[in-house]
């Protein structure tokens, strides 16, 4: 079957991808800059595949509806933006502990507090270091194009079920609003089989399934944690993904995720015009973070600069990856400002090129 090529807005493409991925239920709440996801789904999803689309009364309610539905083994998702994502953190901790699969989307905006409606990347810590309580990890995918916004939905669901873990697409308001051409996948059928672990009604031939997260005994909880940690080590071994652009003979490497990685590519082109060899390292999985790839790259370059739309979050992981081998600088903009390629190059020259030559 032919895949369809369309010009679409990021949020709408993501919603379309959800329908095509055979999503069973979406529970969400309006918040700028991602309300189009809920609106798009409210319009046509149920008519096309019968999936549930429900506008909940809050993000707290949304994530708990996701938790309930995910516990039945269905393909369930929600989306929000930074302040709403904060409200979901408790629910995400429960989902991760109970090991039920779900897809989360954070279309980041400037923060903290109510912040701005312009794009941001300041929820990196929240996403990958665990914004909720306890030791857990959310598989985090960072798209940098509208195409990746589409691709990561189907992949995200697959990963969520494979590892029985929440998966997050960490994107931003600019990607959510921009229009690009996308190749849409084929329609995947909705789930008809129950998962063996799902709370779907106990038939006589099995023990009851309980989706829960409590233990009254510390030793039981520790074993539970160890099981989760073992899973995370497996994820770290199997899922790391990154992209290196022109890094083979680069002197300096810009490290950035999502939208900013594309801006850095332009900055690299401008650098080349000035005779400075700059590559771009783009982590695609933010958890699991590509520490080893960065570490290897550090052998061949003079320095790194992490560029982010925050006050310095991913740079900490970059430093961990580089592990002291080479200098790691940082340039960031906050509050919803998007850095320009010229400014990135200027900062690179100021912080790294000038210092080291």
């Amino acid at each position, binding site marked *: 079957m032919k895949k369809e090529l369309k010009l679409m807005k990021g949020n709408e493409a993501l919603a379309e991808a959800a329908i095509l991925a055979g999503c*069973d*239920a979406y*529970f969400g709440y309006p918040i700028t800059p991602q309300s189009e996801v809920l609106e798009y789904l409210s319009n046509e999803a149920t008519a096309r595949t019968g999936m*549930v689309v*429900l506008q*909940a*009364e*809050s993000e*707290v*309610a*949304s994530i*708990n*509806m*996701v*938790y*309930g*539905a*995910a*516990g*039945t083994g*269905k393909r*369930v998702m929600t989306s929000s933006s930074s302040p709403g994502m904060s409200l979901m953190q*408790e*629910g995400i901790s*429960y989902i991760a502990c*109970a090991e039920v699969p779900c897809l989360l989307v954070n279309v980041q905006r400037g923060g903290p507090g109510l912040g701005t409606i312009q794009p941001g990347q300041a929820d990196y810590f929240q996403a990958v270091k665990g914004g909720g309580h306890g030791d857990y990890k959310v598989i985090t995918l960072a798209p940098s194009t509208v195409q990746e916004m589409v691709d990561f939905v189907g992949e995200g669901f697959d990963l969520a079920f494979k590892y029985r873990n929440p998966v997050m697409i960490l994107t931003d308001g600019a990607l959510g609003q921009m229009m690009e051409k996308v190749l849409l996948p084929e329609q995947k059928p909705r789930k008809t089989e129950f998962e063996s672990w*799902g*709370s*779907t*009604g*106990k*038939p*006589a031939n099995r023990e*009851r*399934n*309980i*989706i*829960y*997260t*409590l233990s*009254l005994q510390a030793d039981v909880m520790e074993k539970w944690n160890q099981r989760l940690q073992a899973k995370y080590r497996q994820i770290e071994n199997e899922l790391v993904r990154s992209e290196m652009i022109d890094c083979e003979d680069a002197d300096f490497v810009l490290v950035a995720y999502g939208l900013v990685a594309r801006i850095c590519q332009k900055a690299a082109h401008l650098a080349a015009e000035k005779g400075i060899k700059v590559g771009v390292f783009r982590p695609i999985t933010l958890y699991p973070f590509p520490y080893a790839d960065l570490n290897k790259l550090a052998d061949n370059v003079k320095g790194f600069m992490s560029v982010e739309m925050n006050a310095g979050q991913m740079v900490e992981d970059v430093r961990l990856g580089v592990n002291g081998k080479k200098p790691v600088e940082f340039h960031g903009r906050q509050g919803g400002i998007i850095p320009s390629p010229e400014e990135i190059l200027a900062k690179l020259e100021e912080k790294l090129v000038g210092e080291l030559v």
Partner: protein
Amino acid sequence: MNEKTMTAEDDLHFEQMIAEESVCTKENLVYEKPETLTDATMHYCPGCGHGVAHRIIAEVIDELDIQKDTVGVAPVGCSVLAYNYLNIDMNGAAHGRAAAVATGIKRVLPDKYVFSYQGDGDLAAIGTGETIHACNRGENILIIFINNGIYGMTGGQMAPTTLPGMKSTTSPFGRDVATMGNPLKITELVAQLPGTYFVTRTAVNSPVNVRKAKAAIKKSFEYQKLNKGLCFVEIVTNCPSNWKMTPVQSNKWLEENMLPYYPLGDIKKPSN
């Protein structure tokens, strides 16, 4: 030839024979605990109404034969471990969120019987938003609201339903309406929403009330099968430990103090 007549003595002997024969036979069994109630010893305090509430839910599930089609949602509170006592698939929700969790389950499994079981803090404090909106949407679920006017699991703090003047660890001089507000009659509130189909208040302090509470739960599951809307069954119950009374005293206190404030009966009768 043996001539034998039934004398009065023989008669008496005959009676005695019948009397001494044990009554406890299989044919004479009129009540035992329901199958859907597990054999686990419930951790609830002696005399706590949670045990009775769990038991009657299990009885209804057995009688309607819906064990394989029922999914329950447990709250945070004393009954956080309800899933240890009911032999059905269950989800343990975050504090206050059971109505949202139940909504999620019912929306993706519309043919199953879905219920939430929540205490007064879970349902009417932290969970008020989720409770009201599930009721407002008319989710086809049953919400069982266990109201004992106090926070049991965390050691006896004031609840939204604590009575005026009632002492708790956070209202040590008695609930002061001026600074702490009146008890929240959430049941009456949700009854006003068109999405609720059947709203009733019961108790389990006496055999008569236990039977009525069970009947309310049974009816609610039957209404759920007919997609009538949200059924809300409040069970006013005791907390002997935190009320600092014996179980028998606590039921008496309940009759004298809780029931006048939270009167039993249908607050919203089914409309059709």
